């Protein structure tokens, strides 16, 4: 076999065979076993231009640059999380250092349900691997890097959305099974980003039983045109594989071919594995397909053992729903910069919202009040007051200074931090520009 990849592809393949959330949890030791067997038997790693790498171990500082872990990072994060995040960082570094053209981090546990504030695990995720990776890159290579996420997991990427909701240099597109039918129950077309990054959050909920047809309609008519407009420096596919027709946790009908073709068209610089729990019938084939597609090689012979060509046919009702949503999103994308922010958010100083966040894995309920300052000079100071039950920590205050923070917001942030010390036992200040996390305990 004398095959050469068109694109040099780096694989950070780390199945963490000795780690699970719990022995019978879907996120278990066995999860990538069959993928590894398939990849080895196909001889993918012998193809010239496909190279395998070990993950790095991310540091606590890498985590603190992205998250605010409460009460502190050390008590929430363990080595497996740092390795999974480090796998994403390694993949990104391979691309940035031009050692490879593209990289695919096949890592676990996944990350896209982890919010900026972290009390524990939710949706099998504790820290957001891809956000930790992006914040690492922006710190190292400049915060003006334009990043586009395309999250194709069946679940709404609520964590990544939360972290980049008000970040003008990061476009976050999530396509997922409709939140009315699946965890986490969010991700509707009206969520379009905060006042500092309006229009740069895009959610396309897909009806249950959407097939390759619906997925590719959305890709061709919404995602690719938007990416063309946004013109990012890096495209990241948060590659969840639980849209597959055999996945036990969802009700979608995507095939391995559908996933591979998506990666061919999307042509991402980086793919980071998210969920996907049909570990025998789907993952081996989807992962092989994604690798070939990213390497620029023929994937047309990949097929699940139970594949049936009828699977890709989709009802016209589903098609119509998707078309309508695509049209709506496309028109709001086109108008994104014409919007009067103060009128849209109905405020002149702070845009305030309330959020209830449920940690299904850790069984924690969190209530957040998020205040974002409407600022003409930067994307705006952010203040998050948060309380989690049944934890006994009490209310915490979290002040976030964005990368593009202006002097006024910066001063205001540090003042608030000092003043609030008397009112909060736990107060945090995350200064992106200075790359530091302050806390009063």
């Amino acid at each position, binding site marked *: 076999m004398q095959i050469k990849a068109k694109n040099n592809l780096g694989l950070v393949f780390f199945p963490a065979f000795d780690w699970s959330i719990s022995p019978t949890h879907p996120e278990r030791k066995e999860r990538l076993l069959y993928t590894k067997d398939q990849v080895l038997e196909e001889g993918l790693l*012998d193809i010239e231009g496909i190279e395998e790498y070990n993950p790095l*171990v991310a540091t606590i500082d890498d985590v603190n640059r992205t998250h605010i872990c409460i009460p502190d990072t050390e008590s929430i994060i363990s080595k497996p999380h740092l390795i999974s995040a480090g796998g994403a960082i390694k993949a990104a570094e391979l691309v940035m250092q031009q050692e490879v053209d593209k990289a695919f981090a096949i890592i676990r546990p996944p990350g896209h349900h982890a919010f900026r504030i972290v009390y524990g695990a939710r949706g099998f995720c504790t820290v957001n691997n891809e956000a930790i990776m992006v914040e690492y890159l922006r710190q190292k290579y400049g915060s003006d890097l334009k990043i586009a996420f395309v999250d194709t997991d069946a679940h709404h990427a609520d964590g990544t959305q939360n972290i980049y909701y008000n970040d003008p240099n990061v476009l976050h597109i999530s396509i997922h099974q409709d939140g009315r039918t699946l965890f986490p129950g969010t991700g509707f077309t009206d969520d379009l980003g905060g006042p500092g990054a309006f229009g740069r959050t895009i959610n396309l909920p897909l009806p249950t039983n959407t097939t390759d047809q619906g997925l590719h309609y959305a890709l061709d008519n919404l995602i690719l045109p938007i990416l063309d407009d946004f013109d990012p420096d890096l495209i990241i596919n948060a590659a969840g594989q639980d849209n597959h027709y055999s996945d036990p946790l969802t009700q979608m009908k995507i095939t391995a071919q559908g996933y591979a073709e998506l990666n061919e068209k999307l042509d991402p610089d980086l793919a980071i594995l998210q969920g996907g729990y049909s570990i025998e019938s789907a993952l081996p084939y989807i992962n092989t397909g994604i690798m070939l597609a990213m390497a620029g090689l023929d994937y047309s012979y990949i097929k699940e053992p139970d594949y049936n060509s009828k699977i890709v046919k989709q009802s016209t009702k589903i098609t119509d729903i998707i078309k309508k949503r695509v049209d709506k999103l496309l028109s709001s994308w086109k108008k994104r910069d014409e919007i009067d922010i103060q009128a849209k958010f109905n405020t002149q100083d702070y845009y305030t919202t309330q959020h209830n966040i449920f940690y299904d894995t850790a069984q924690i309920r969190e209530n957040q009040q998020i205040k974002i300052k409407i600022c003409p000079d930067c994307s705006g100071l952010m203040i998050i007051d948060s309380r989690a039950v049944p934890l006994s920590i009490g209310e915490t205050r979290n002040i976030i200074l964005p990368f593009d923070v202006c002097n006024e917001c910066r001063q205001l942030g540090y003042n608030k931090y000092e003043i609030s010390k008397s009112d909060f036992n736990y107060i945090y200040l995350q200064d992106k520009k200075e790359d530091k996390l302050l806390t009063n305990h």
Partner: protein
Amino acid sequence: MQLGIDIGGTHTDGVLLDKNDQLINHNKLPTDYHNLADTILSSCQKLTSNSNRNNLNRLVLSTTLITNLIIKGGGHSTGLLLIPGPGLNPAWYNYSPYTKIISGSIDHRGRKVKDITEKEVKKGVANFIKQGVNNIGICGKFSTRNPSQELKIKKIIENNFPEIKNITLSHKLSGKLNYPRRIATTYLNTGVQKPHNKFISDIQTGLNKLNLEAPVYILKADGGTMPLKEAKNLPIESINSGPAASIMGILALTKPTETTLGLDIGGTTTDISLFVGQEPIFKPKGITINNYKTSVRGLYNQSIGVGGDSLIQIKDGKLKIGPQRKGSAAAFGGPAPTPTDALVYLNLTNNGDKKKATASLNPLAKKLHLSTSELAEKIITKFCSQIQTKINQILTKLNNQPVYTINKLLTDNTIQPTRLVGIGGPAKTIIPKLANRLNLKYEVPDHSAVANAVGAALARTTKECTLYADTSRSYYNIPELGIEKEITDEFNLETAKKIAQQELNSNLKNQTAEIKITNSETFNLIRGFKTTGQIIKVTAQVKPGRRRTNAN
């Protein structure tokens, strides 16, 4: 007593060792490529006498026959029957011009997904025969998990085409997952089978004439031996036995006990090997020969194109050593200056004509505005630094091999050699200098000129097998040994290890083997939040090493 014979590119070295492994006799003959069997037999004849032939316990051959056949493309035409199922584009498996894709497939857990059709097989084979091809290799994807389709095809051929005598099944050659490598290995093995069998029967006939009845073994790429009878089906295992003999020679002559770098400094190249503890390490995936990536297990060995006879030139005002070789060193009548000439000039070796060496070095020294002795020193330094750079590259690569568990990722298993051993012509002078640069202890053993033959003579029989058990599907198999058995839910990792060891042991028959479990993994199968079974993987191996005295 034992005989070891190493057939090299130009010379064939033979050694006779006594029962305490001490060298009694050795010789060096020119290799006659057209008649390797004769070269071997005359080496045997010269090493032994009529009186001591009866006391011989064994004869081990390290031969380049198969390596050369493959490199020259001299094997027989081979038809491939492939059962790839879905996956990579089957057109990529373009090993043989005679290839037939058979529909049928097995999945990653060894479940049959699609049956093969007899008609397709018959049509394919009939077509091969029509084209004059009667050697056939059969390779199915995941056949190591379930060989039934390969076996079924073999049966169809035997029942319908008695004229086909030579069939290789891929699952018998390797228990490891890697379909393209298994195809390449099957293809090469099938093609060289007939010339190899002729070689074996010539040797047997010749040895009978010499009244030499001791069992004969062939050295394999993994530094172990296989009995001649087994070698008949597995000629491919004997590729790369030259470097393997050299590594086993280092092992036999120096008995490494710590992490050791081995260097074989030859005329054209320097071969670098590694020992961790008393064991040489393996290539991670398998040997590559003539651009074929195979699944043949081989000892780790990296060549660098600098040796004692490498051509020295000045390019862009800089000294350049190798990778070309124009002939022997000027001091030995060769046409151009070499590192050996630098050693001769500096009186670091007793042999060679110093005048000739000086004459070859002088023009270069002038060009670089150096004295001849400065140049000679510079050559030696450069020679060492090129090898040092390669060693560092090797260590970096080996120390960054992918791992799949958190435990392994966080455990520091860095290979850091503490000792250097060297064989080959210039080793006596070069090794101490190199050891000094690398800050290592060193050793240059005696008899290093015949190290390869000694290595072959003392190598023990090696064998590997992989057991794969799936308790929810109630079976285990060991593809290399052709074993498949039903099991119950009670089957566990400990049982699996025991069985792998027992089966390997009974396969080796008369060797008192030291069988090690080199890999063992177990995974609970969880379906619907319940454990429904276990997948168990075990690899058992007799590692290469010195044969124990009084055993085969």
